[in-house]
């Protein structure tokens, strides 16, 4: 039996964390969640994930801290895929995210099965 895929979900909204975490856990992923960037960074410093799904905006930052997440993850773990979710994504921000190497940039609301399908496709390309 293969090892479960590992995923980190970063969102300041507890409901979003809960929904994504439950959904991906049922699909067989090993899921960690973080409610703030510092918590995510602390996890990333000691654990390796195949996929990070993060909100673009996290409490306490300037509004596009998800972009920093993309850069930080790619510097530390080049093999880790990053998916950004946002309800406020301008074309400019999306272009910047792509420039920084984001693997998927999705606009909320997005059905959970669709997020999972895209995640599967991203990880299949990695495998």
């Amino acid at each position, binding site marked *: 039996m293969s090892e479960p895929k590992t995923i980190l979900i970063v969102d300041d909204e*507890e*409901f979003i964390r*809960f929904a994504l975490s*439950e959904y991906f856990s049922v699909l067989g992923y090993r899921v*960690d969640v*973080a*409610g*703030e960037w*510092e*918590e995510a*960074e*602390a*996890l990333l*410093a*000691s*654990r390796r994930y195949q996929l990070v799904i993060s909100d673009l905006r996290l409490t306490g930052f300037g509004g596009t801290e998800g972009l920093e997440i993309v850069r930080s993850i790619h510097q530390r773990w080049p093999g880790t895929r990053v998916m950004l979710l946002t309800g406020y994504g301008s074309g400019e921000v999306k272009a910047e995210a792509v420039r920084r190497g984001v693997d998927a940039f999705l606009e909320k609301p997005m059905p959970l099965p669709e997020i999972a399908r895209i995640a599967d496709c991203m990880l299949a390309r990695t495998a």
Partner: protein
Amino acid sequence: MTSFPAAAPNLVDRILAPGGLRVELQPILDVEGALTTVHSYECLSRGPAGTNMASADVLFEYIRRKKIEQNMDRVCIEAGLEAGSRLPGLPHFAVNVHAITIATDPDLPAFLKKAASARGISTSRLTVEIVEHAPTWHEGSFLETLTRLRELGIQIALDDVGLGHSNYKMILEANPDYLKIDRFFVTNCHNDRKRRAVIRSIAELAHEFEATVIAEGVETREEFDWLCDQGVRLFQGYFFSRPRPVEALMENTWRENLAVAVSHKRSNA
């Protein structure tokens, strides 16, 4: 059916709240010839169970990123001494303090004195382990605070020697009583020529500075035997005892395992 969890309090508040930390103590053993004694207990903190912070690595990385080392160190000291004060006898305790706290918290000696005194612990039974020696450690009142800690009879240990910012300059200026060799160097040292060279080098440095080496992360008999042969006396690690809640330490069963482990070395000596 899974239910949606109620809104949790802020994570920092949960960690720093009374009872937010779980404390475990790990003995540091003094093995000299036929005599093995508990030198001290290191007070170790873990975050709330069921959160990412239950892992010490994640917890302290988070604390550093939130830049609340000073608050955290104080909470850990209180919690550690509270747990330790329940042990019988007059054991010594090692508490971890970030270098940045020593540099920026001039009231730390008074705080330590008060926290220890409130629990009937003499400050001469305390060692401050300096951890995470950030590059700014030399700023502020770092050296002055170390002097004041020493005036209280508190000993100074340098944690993670050989890693990160625990460098020669730090050793020279902090003049620690103990150099703690990180598990990174101890693991498999008996089989690794380069690790052995690093450990010998630290031991020689300790000798010149009149400091005592503590080998951390000792997990096998082979590592223990080799370190004994190098003249190391103070040991900490799962080979002797993992960190345990104070209740488990008071059961004393771990001492029986310890006796077996150490006697094996003597029988081979």
